[in-house]
């Protein structure tokens, strides 16, 4: 596998929990400007693959390449520096922070002021930078109107927007979305589709999703996991006709619709 021109690549990833093998020998890569989908039945190991990349689970074996160079599996708090941002399968907003504060937290890496200057109250400039970045990110998801609301008072679709804004604000090169459309209504799903497509100018997107409309619309390429193994990969059109994928995941009815 050539990992030269890929932004992110993993190879030979195996993860197990006790006796349970959640992923075995998984290869996957994401090229610049690409939207890559990771699909598969429930419990196939999609979130686990995300967790491995993010340092939330420790792989048994496997290598990670960033920009074509081999890289140690990162710690979760290093991701933002590495240009990787991720949303969680739940939503994972900080409930008692305002929307703006939530998003500012995602931009933390642009702040350089230390504890002393914070104590002296001299972080005004720094804060202003974060606030402006956060505002810009909220604009991109059309959520400026709710900037001052507490995150736990938001409607469900709004929480999804904010979660994405919080990921976007760190200006990642790779954005990892875990079920961004889950629980959304039809209109919001369409909005989400167009947002994701628009992002590709600045970043690559790796996406886990069960909504086939979303997957088929936005993804350039797909990997299909089943029982922790990649059973199929390629463009959406190839994958959706793969009998293995139909049998394991899509079911007969989806093929014709």
């Amino acid at each position, binding site marked *: 596998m050539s990992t030269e021109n890929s932004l992110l690549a993993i190879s030979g990833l195996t993860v197990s929990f006790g006796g349970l093998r959640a992923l075995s020998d998984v290869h996957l890569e994401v090229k610049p400007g690409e939207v890559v989908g990771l699909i598969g039945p429930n419990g196939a190991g999609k979130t686990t693959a995300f967790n491995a990349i*993010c340092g*939330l689970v420790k792989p048994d074996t496997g290598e990670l390449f960033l920009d074509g160079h081999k890289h140690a599996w990162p*710690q*979760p*708090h*290093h*991701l*933002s*520096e590495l240009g990787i*941002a*991720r949303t*969680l399968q739940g939503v*994972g*907003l*900080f*409930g*008692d*922070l305002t929307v703006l*504060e*939530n998003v*500012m*937290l*995602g931009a*933390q*890496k642009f*702040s350089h*002021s230390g*504890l002393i200057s*914070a*104590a*002296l*109250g*001299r*972080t*005004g400039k*720094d*804060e202003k930078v*974060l606030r402006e970045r956060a505002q810009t990110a909220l604009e991109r998801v059309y959520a400026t109107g709710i900037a001052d609301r507490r995150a736990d008072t938001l409607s469900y679709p709004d929480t999804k927007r904010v979660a994405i804004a*919080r990921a976007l604000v*760190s200006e990642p090169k790779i954005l990892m979305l875990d079920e961004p459309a889950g629980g959304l209504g039809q209109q919001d799903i369409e909005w989400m589709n167009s947002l994701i497509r628009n992002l590709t100018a600045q970043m690559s997107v790796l996406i886990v999703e069960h909504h086939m409309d979303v997957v088929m619309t936005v993804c350039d390429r797909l990997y299909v996991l089943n029982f922790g193994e990649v059973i199929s990969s390629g463009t959406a059109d190839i994958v959706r006709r793969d009998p293995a994928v139909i049998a394991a995941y899509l079911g007969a009815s989806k093929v014709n619709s």
Partner: protein
Amino acid sequence: MRKRLLLFIALGWVLLFIGDRVDELRVYQGASIAVYTIAIGSIILLTGYSGQISLGHGALMAFGGYVAALCVANASLPLWFAFVMAALLTGIFGGVLGFAAARLSGPYLAGTTLALAVGLPSLANQFSILGGEQGIYLDPGLPPARLGEDFSQYKWFFWITTLAALITMFWLSNILRSKYGRTWRALRGNEVAAQLCGVHTGRQKVLAFALSSGLAGLAGALLVLTISTVSPSAFPLSLSFALVTGAVVSGIYDLKGVMLGAVILVIIPEIADSVASRFGDSLKIISTLPGLLVSALLILAVLFTPNGPGEKLHHLRHKRKAHSG
């Protein structure tokens, strides 16, 4: 930010002015309030912001108290330096402790800090330099002569503690408003999400614990100043509990109420006293009433203004607006 600084300076003037007008007992109480203000502030930082529970802040105050007393008694360092050392060394001690504490959460942390509160003071008897149960005398020295002849000791303490409290509250409110405060609140809410935002959660928890310890150490040193003596029995478990009470009454999440909490801690025993004297002087009442009142207050506070008087006022104001609007 400049506005806040001015506000604090103005507040300082007001307090000093008041300190000049009232009798000595009030001045002494004022000094106690200042000390509690700092101590409660340290709990608010720790519990309200970073979400860690400590039932052992009394022990950290003891640590600071001993540091300050040793600095003055053994090394003859000036008072202000002793206080800085108290804050610094207690902060470092807290940081070391925090390495263990940061891995613990909820009841595990509560249990460990509780054991600290019970265990640490009795360590003082192990080292003769700490003066055993009798403790060490912290000689505050006389107030500077230029303040005049009749400038009392307590007024001097009041000035020192109030100044310390104002400076601390200024710093603390700045930090809590900065990205640090935001980060702590975030990791309290969702640790994984905070990590994905680039927050090193372990380090941030240790930092919060260390800062909070430092403040507790400073408060301990100032407490020792007001009673001129540091001894193990000055930091009983009930002190640690009282601080938590004060923080809850203040609104655990809200630095604005912190003085209120401190005032209440000082005032409750007074009220208990006067009620007790009204019931004649039954020793049973004298000995049980203050405990009863503090406990009852604590319970009422959690039941009726769980998130502090600030939030309650906010609600009331909104209701009124809603009614009039």
